[in-house]
C-alpha cells in the first residue's frame, strides 16, 4: 500500500482518518446529551437561517376545514411534551410568541396600548385602495393622508359596536398574552371622507381582479351599521409589515422556512390558544385567520407569525350574534349529533338551555355556565388536540395574571356606547378568567417562580394565588439531591425539608448543598393535599451553581409521554 499511494494522497487519507477520530472523540459527549447546556434556559428561540426565500403559501378554506374536522392531521403520538419550551418549562420569545403578561410586569397602560405604536390613521381624507371580499364584516382597504395602508371593518347592520369593540378588546388581550398582533384602532368616518384611488382594485373572485367602482362599495355600506349622525364606526388595522407569505397551519412545519423546526402541533404557544380562546370565545381558529410575514432585520430575513383575525370573540361576530352552539360544539361532532338524531332532539346540550343576558354590543357571551375544559372552537385544530395539562397550566397562569383592573381597562378600549355592555363584558371576562384558573391550575402541582438564595427555596403556589384555593393541607415537601448533569442521575441525597408556607429551607448540616461552581442541584417539590392527589406528583426543579449563586435551569412538571391531557376529543370520537 505504501508503495502504491503517493505521499500526498497518503497524507490526505491520514488527515481524513484523523478527522474522523477527532469527531469520534467528541461523539460520546454528544451522545450523552447533557441535560442542561451552558446557555440554558434559552430566553429566545434562535432563528439563525435566512428566510428570504420563503414563498407565499395558500391554504384554501374547504380543505383546511375538512382536514381538521375529519382527519387528525400532524403527529398522532399522544402526550408529547411541547417542543418549543425551554428547560424551565417556559416558552422562549420567538417569531411566534413574546413573553408579556405573567412573565413580566405589565401596567394598565401597557395592556391598553397593546400593539399600537402611534395614534392611528392620520387625520384627513382616506383613499380607498381595495374593496374587502373576504369575511362577513363589511369593509375596505384604505390609505391615510400619510400614505399608510389600513384595513377597515365596520359593524354589521343592526349590531352597533359589537364587532368593532370585540376586535379592539381582543387584539389587546392577545397582544398581552404574547401574540403578534396588528396595530388596531377604532375610528369613525363619513362616506364623504372617502376617495377612491384610480388604481384601486377589487377581487370579486379569487381569479378575478379589476378596477374598483363606486358601486362595489355601496353594498358594503348598505350592510354596515350607520350611526345616528350618518357616520360609520370602524376597526382600523395597520398593514402588517414585511412580505406576506400566507397563513400558517396548526400542524407540521413550513418546509421552506429553515427556522421552523418544531411541528406546530407541538408548539405550546399554539396549544395554549385553546385556553386563551376559551377565555374570550375565539371560535374561528382556522388557518385563514393567521398570517406569516417575512421581515428583514440586520440583513437577515425571518418569518413572523401573526394571529391576524382575533375579532371572532365574545358574543358577536362579523355578521351578528354568535350561533347558539358556538363554543360548545365543533361544526361537526359525532357524539352530540347522533344523540340528538336518535332522541328527536330531546338530548339537550348545555347551549340549548343556558340563559344569556344579551346586550346588543356584547351578544351571546356569558360566564356563569362557561366550562373551560369543554369549550371548543368551530373547527378543531391539531395544536389544541395535543395540549397537555402542563400546556394548559402554563396558559392558565397567563390568563389568571390579568388583574380586574387590567381586564376592565382593556374592555374600556372597546368604546362601548352602553356602559352596561362594558360592565357586562368585563364581568364575564373576569368570571371566565377565574374559572380557567380554577380548572387548570390545580390539575398539576401548582408551584411556580422558583428561586434559591441564602439556603432558602422560595416559590409561589399558583392555585392559592390565582384560584383561591387554601394552602395544601399536607404543607410543602422538598427532597434535595445533588445532580450529575452529564449522566442525568441524582448522585447524592442531601435531605428532605418541609414547610407550611411556600418557602423551604435547604437541609442543614453536613454535607449540605454543593458549593462548587458548576454543581447542579435537583429539588423534587410536592404539595400534598387531600383534595388534590396530583399535587403529590413532584415538580422537579434544577439549579446550577454559578459564581456563588444558584440559578434556576430546569423545571419539569410532566414528563414527555406522561398521561396528562385534558384537551377535548377529536370530533370523530364518540365522547366529548
Amino acid at each position: 500500500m505504501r508503495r502504491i499511494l503517493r505521499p500526498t494522497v497518503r497524507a490526505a487519507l491520514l488527515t481524513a482518518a484523523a478527522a474522523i477520530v477527532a469527531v469520534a472523540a467528541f461523539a460520546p459527549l454528544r451522545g450523552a446529551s447533557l441535560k442542561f447546556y451552558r446557555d440554558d434556559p434559552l430566553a429566545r428561540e434562535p432563528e439563525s437561517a435566512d428566510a428570504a426565500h420563503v414563498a407565499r403559501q395558500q391554504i384554501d378554506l374547504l380543505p383546511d376545514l375538512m382536514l381538521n374536522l375529519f382527519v387528525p392531521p400532524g403527529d398522532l403520538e399522544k402526550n408529547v411534551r411541547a417542543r418549543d419550551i425551554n428547560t424551565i418549562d417556559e416558552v422562549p420569545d420567538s417569531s411566534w410568541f413574546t413573553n408579556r403578561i405573567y412573565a413580566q410586569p405589565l401596567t394598565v397602560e401597557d395592556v391598553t396600548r397593546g400593539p399600537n405604536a402611534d395614534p392611528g390613521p392620520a387625520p384627513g381624507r382616506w383613499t380607498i385602495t381595495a374593496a374587502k371580499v373576504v369575511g362577513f364584516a363589511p369593509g375596505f382597504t384604505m390609505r391615510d393622508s400619510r400614505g399608510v395602508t389600513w384595513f377597515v371593518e365596520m359593524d354589521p347592520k343592526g349590531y352597533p359596536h359589537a364587532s368593532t369593540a370585540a376586535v379592539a378588546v381582543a387584539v389587546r388581550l392577545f397582544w398581552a398574552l404574547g401574540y403578534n398582533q396588528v396595530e388596531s384602532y377604532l375610528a369613525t368616518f363619513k362616506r364623504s371622507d372617502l376617495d377612491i384611488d384610480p388604481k384601486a382594485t377589487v377581487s370579486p373572485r379569487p381569479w378575478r381582479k379589476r378596477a374598483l367602482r363606486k358601486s362595489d362599495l355601496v353594498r358594503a355600506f348598505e350592510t354596515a351599521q350607520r350611526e345616528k349622525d350618518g357616520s360609520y364606526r370602524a376597526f382600523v388595522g395597520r398593514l402588517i409589515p414585511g412580505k406576506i407569505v400566507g397563513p400558517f397551519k396548526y400542524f407540521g412545519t413550513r418546509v421552506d422556512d429553515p427556522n421552523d423546526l418544531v411541528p406546530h402541533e407541538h408548539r405550546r404557544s399554539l396549544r395554549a390558544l385553546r385556553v386563551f380562546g376559551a377565555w374570550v370565545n375565539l371560535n374561528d381558529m382556522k388557518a385563514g385567520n393567521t398570517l406569516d410575514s417575512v421581515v428583514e432585520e440586520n440583513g437577515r430575513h425571518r418569518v413572523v407569525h401573526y394571529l391576524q383575525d382575533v375579532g371572532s370573540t365574545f358574543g358577536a361576530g362579523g355578521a351578528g350574534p354568535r350561533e347558539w352552539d358556538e363554543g360548545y360544539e365543533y361544526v361537526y361532532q359525532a357524539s352530540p349529533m347522533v344523540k340528538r338524531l336518535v332522541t328527536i332532539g330531546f338530548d339537550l346540550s348545555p347551549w340549548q338551555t343556558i340563559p344569556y343576558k344579551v346586550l346588543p354590543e356584547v351578544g351571546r357571551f356569558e360566564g356563569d355556565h362557561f366550562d373551560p375544559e369543554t369549550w371548543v372552537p368551530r373547527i378543531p385544530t391539531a395544536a389544541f388536540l395535543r395540549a397537555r395539562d402542563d400546556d394548559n397550566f402554563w396558559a392558565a397562569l397567563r390568563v389568571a395574571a390579568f388583574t380586574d383592573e387590567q381586564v376592565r381597562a382593556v374592555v374600556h378600549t372597546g368604546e362601548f356606547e352602553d356602559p352596561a355592555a362594558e360592565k357586562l363584558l368585563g364581568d364575564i371576562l373576569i368570571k371566565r378568567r377565574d374559572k380557567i384558573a380554577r380548572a387548570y391550575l390545580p390539575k398539576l402541582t401548582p408551584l411556580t417562580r422558583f428561586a434559591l438564595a441564602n439556603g432558602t427555596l422560595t416559590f409561589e403556589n399558583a392555585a392559592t394565588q390565582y384560584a383561591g384555593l387554601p394552602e395544601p393541607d399536607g404543607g410543602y415537601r422538598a427532597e434535595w439531591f445533588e445532580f450529575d448533569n452529564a449522566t442525568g442521575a441524582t448522585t447524592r441525597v442531601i435531605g428532605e425539608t418541609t414547610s407550611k408556607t411556600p418557602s423551604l429551607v435547604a437541609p442543614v448540616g453536613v454535607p449540605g448543598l454543593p458549593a462548587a461552581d458548576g454543581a447542579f442541584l435537583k429539588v423534587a417539590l410536592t404539595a400534598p393535599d387531600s383534595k388534590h392527589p396530583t399535587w403529590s406528583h413532584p415538580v422537579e426543579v434544577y439549579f446550577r451553581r454559578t459564581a456563588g449563586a444558584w440559578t434556576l435551569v430546569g423545571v419539569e412538571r410532566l414528563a414527555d409521554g406522561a398521561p396528562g391531557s385534558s384537551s377535548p376529543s377529536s370530533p370523530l370520537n364518540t365522547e366529548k
Partner: protein
Amino acid sequence: MPTPLIPRAITAFLAALCILGPAIASAQDTREGIIIAQQTDKAAHPPPETLTKPEIVVGYIGRFLQPKPRGFFPVFDSVYAGGSVTLGGGYGWAYGDKGSFAVRGLYSIKNYKLFDVLTNSPGHMNGHLTLFGTAGWRNATDAAFYGLGMGASLGDRSDFDFKESYARGNAELRPGDWVVFKGSVGLEAYEIGPSGTHDQSVEGSLTPDQAPGVGADPTYIHSRATAGIDTRTSPGYSRSGGYYGATIHNFTNTNGPYDFNRVEGEAIQHIPILRETWVLSFRGKVESTLGNDMSDTPYFLLPSLGSGSSLRAYTSWRFRDRHSLLTQAEFRWIPNRLGMDMAVFYDAGKVAPRFDGLSFKGMAHDWGVGLRFHGPSFTPLRLEVARGSEGVNFVFSGNAAF
C-alpha cells in the same frame, strides 16, 4: 525526509481537533448551537412536503369543491317529476364578478333526458337584482296521467311521452331585506306523444273530456310575475322566517287555442323552538286556473299533487285538476346545525274542478319521516319515506321540501 506514519497521524489528529473542535464544542455545549445546526441543515436540505394519505384525499376533495373559474361538475336534479333516480353532469364557467354559465345533461333510470344551458347573473343593482336565463330540451318518456279529480284511481293510469323545448329569462328583485319581486318570460314548446312503455296511452285512448288538450302540441309564451315577503334565511334551507307570496301565470299559445291564466298563493312559516333545537314548519299552497272553460288548459299543465314536494306518499302527478290545495306540516329536529336535519311530516292535499271545491274535506294525506343533508343555504340531498292511503313511497330529492 518523510515523517514517520504515527507522528504524522498524531499531527493530523491534533490539526483536525483544532479545526473541528471549536465547532463541535460550540454545537454540543450550547442549546442554541444545536438548534442553529439544525436550522442550517434544514436550509441546506429543505425537506419535502409530506402528507399522509387521508390528508391527500381530503385535500383533493376540498380542492374539488373549491370554486373554480371553470370545470365539470355533477348534477343532482330532476328531469321531470316521476323520473326516478337521475344523475347528470355539466360543464360550467364563471364570468364577470358573480355570473356563471353552465351546460348540463341529465339522465334518469326511466330514460328521462334533459339538456340545457343556464346562466345566472346575481349582484346587479348593488346586489338587489339577479338575472337568470335558461334554454333546453327535456323528454319524459313515461309521464303519468291518472285522470282528473280526487276520484281518479291508481288503476286508471295512462302514460304519455312528454317533450318540451324551452327558453326563458327570469329576474328577481329584492329591493329590501324582506320584499321580493320575480318575473319571467319564456317560450315553451310542448310535443306530446304516445308512450311506448305502458298499455294505455293518453294520446289516442282518452277523450278531451277525460284529458283536456289531448292531441295538442302547444307552444306557449309563458309569462309569470310574483310578489312576496320573504324573511327566510334562504329558500334552499331555512330554520326561521317565512315566505308569503302570490304568483300569476299567463300561458299564451302561439299556435292555437289553450290560452289560460293561473294564480298561485303560497305561505311558508318556520317557527324555531328552543334555539332551533326543533322547528315547526308549515306550508300552504293554492293553485287556481282562472276561468271556467274546462278545456282551455292541457291536462299536462294542470295543477297537480303527488311527488316529493307535495303529497310525498303519492306517486308523481297522482292528482290533477284545475285547482289544487296543499297543506304541509313538519316537525324538524336538528342533529347538526350545518349539515343534517330530521323531520316527521304530514301532507294533505286536494284537487278540484272548481275553486270552491277546495276544502279540507276529502283531502288525500300522508305522513312520513325524512333525513336532509344541507348546507347553510341549500339542501343537496333529501331522503324521505312517506306512507299514505296508497302505500309507501320513497323520496330522493336534491331540493328542500319547502
